[in-house]
């Protein structure tokens, strides 16, 4: 899939946007980015913050850490310090731990996403570098009827072979006694673990796959 690259970052005028469609998109993106920055500031520096934003459609978005209402109240009642009773501190510590955990989770996913994006680039590179495409790799619409018929047969046959190969692997696996033990901590683990690994079934993390 070819990714259309946009014009890139451009300097814009600091006045109200003229085109409404652009304005709405800009609002959506920038609001999201704003909350993200606020969230980062809270995590990095441990501060309390509230942001209130009205949308062009008169809906209201709000972000608050620890939560919107408490900060608003604190501001409006000119309360100099937030309460620091033991219960509050406990709640806060628990909340912070939660956020830390979510952060770790998010970072993990974002890293995986970055990895997959790099992988896409690599895949495209290899595709481009291939010398000479076979005729069946071209778009289906460019093939003649004869070629299509032949390709159809070839694919059907390949499908059969794939199914055969899968059944073969499963059959061989089910004949390995250790397969059903669900773990790899037994003494004869050496050989069996190798077998299991070779099956690519990753039982250690996924657990045994059930077969009909």
């Amino acid at each position: 899939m070819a990714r259309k690259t946009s014009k890139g970052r451009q300097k814009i005028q600091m006045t109200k946007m003229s085109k409404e469609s652009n304005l709405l998109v800009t609002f959506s993106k920038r609001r999201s980015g704003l909350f993200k920055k606020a969230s980062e500031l809270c995590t990095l520096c441990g501060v309390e913050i509230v942001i209130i934003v009205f949308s062009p459609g008169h809906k209201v978005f709000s972000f608050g850490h620890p939560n919107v209402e408490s900060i608003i109240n604190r501001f409006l009642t000119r309360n100099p310090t937030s309460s620091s009773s033991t219960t509050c501190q406990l709640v806060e510590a628990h909340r912070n731990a939660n956020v830390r955990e979510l952060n770790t989770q998010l970072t993990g996913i974002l890293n995986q996403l970055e990895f997959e994006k790099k992988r896409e680039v690599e895949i495209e590179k290899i595709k481009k570098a291939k010398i000479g495409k076979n005729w069946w790799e071209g778009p289906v619409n460019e093939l003649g009827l004869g070629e299509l018929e032949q390709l159809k047969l070839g694919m059907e046959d390949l499908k059969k072979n794939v199914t055969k190969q899968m059944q073969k692997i499963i059959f061989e696996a089910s004949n390995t006694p250790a397969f059903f033990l669900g773990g790899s901590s037994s003494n004869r683990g050496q050989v069996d673990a190798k077998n299991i690994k070779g099956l690519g079934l990753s039982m250690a993390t996924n657990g045994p796959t059930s077969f009909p």
Partner: protein
Amino acid sequence: MTRKKVKLAYITNDSSRKATFKKRKKGLMKKVSELSTLCGIDACAIIYSPYDNSPEVWPNIMGAQHVLSEFKRMPEMEQSKKMVNQESFMKQRIAKASEQLKKQSKENREKEMTEVMYQALAGKGLQNLNLGDLNDLSWVIDQNMKGIYKRIEAIKKGASTSSSSAAAAPQVAAERKPAVTGLGLEGMQRTQAEWFNDWMNNNTSEQQLGFGHGNEMIITNFNNNHNANVWPNDFFP
């Protein structure tokens, strides 16, 4: 301006944290201001920090109070509908990122397996593929076959409705393979008999044609867990 990737965790170094706070707070206020100007909307930001007794406010105390009263005037439901805190916001981001990851993974896997399919059609053996690979390969084959059946139907339909297009079809085939007659099926089989035979007999152990003969085929075993079972079927419900 440095562009080092910052770890998303509380900064333990006091001076570093204070410096970061100063910069980011300034940037945040700027962003609120820009959002307000560009989109012509009301907004406010209030920041309490350990470095200052009074909060940092945008646009100013009066302006913020105005926005807050506007906010409070709205019905409860409207207020809370788009309200988030750190936790809920993070969960939203996690959900979105997970979706993107799933989509990207699936696309990559599909591209990868399509390459495998092409190579298999060229005669490469299936021995080096594990169960997950084979399953995904099977799915890709099915998808491609759907397209082929459709196209064949379309051509046949076109050929039956008008004689002119029937003449066109063999014409196209003839252009590609001069040795072809009629619809060209027989001619092709003759010129590509080898190709056919190759994977007819392809499960022999002599054909240890692994993947990646210098082409760096990407059938890696990294993270096999989330790569296999991308598409459910009888084996992997």
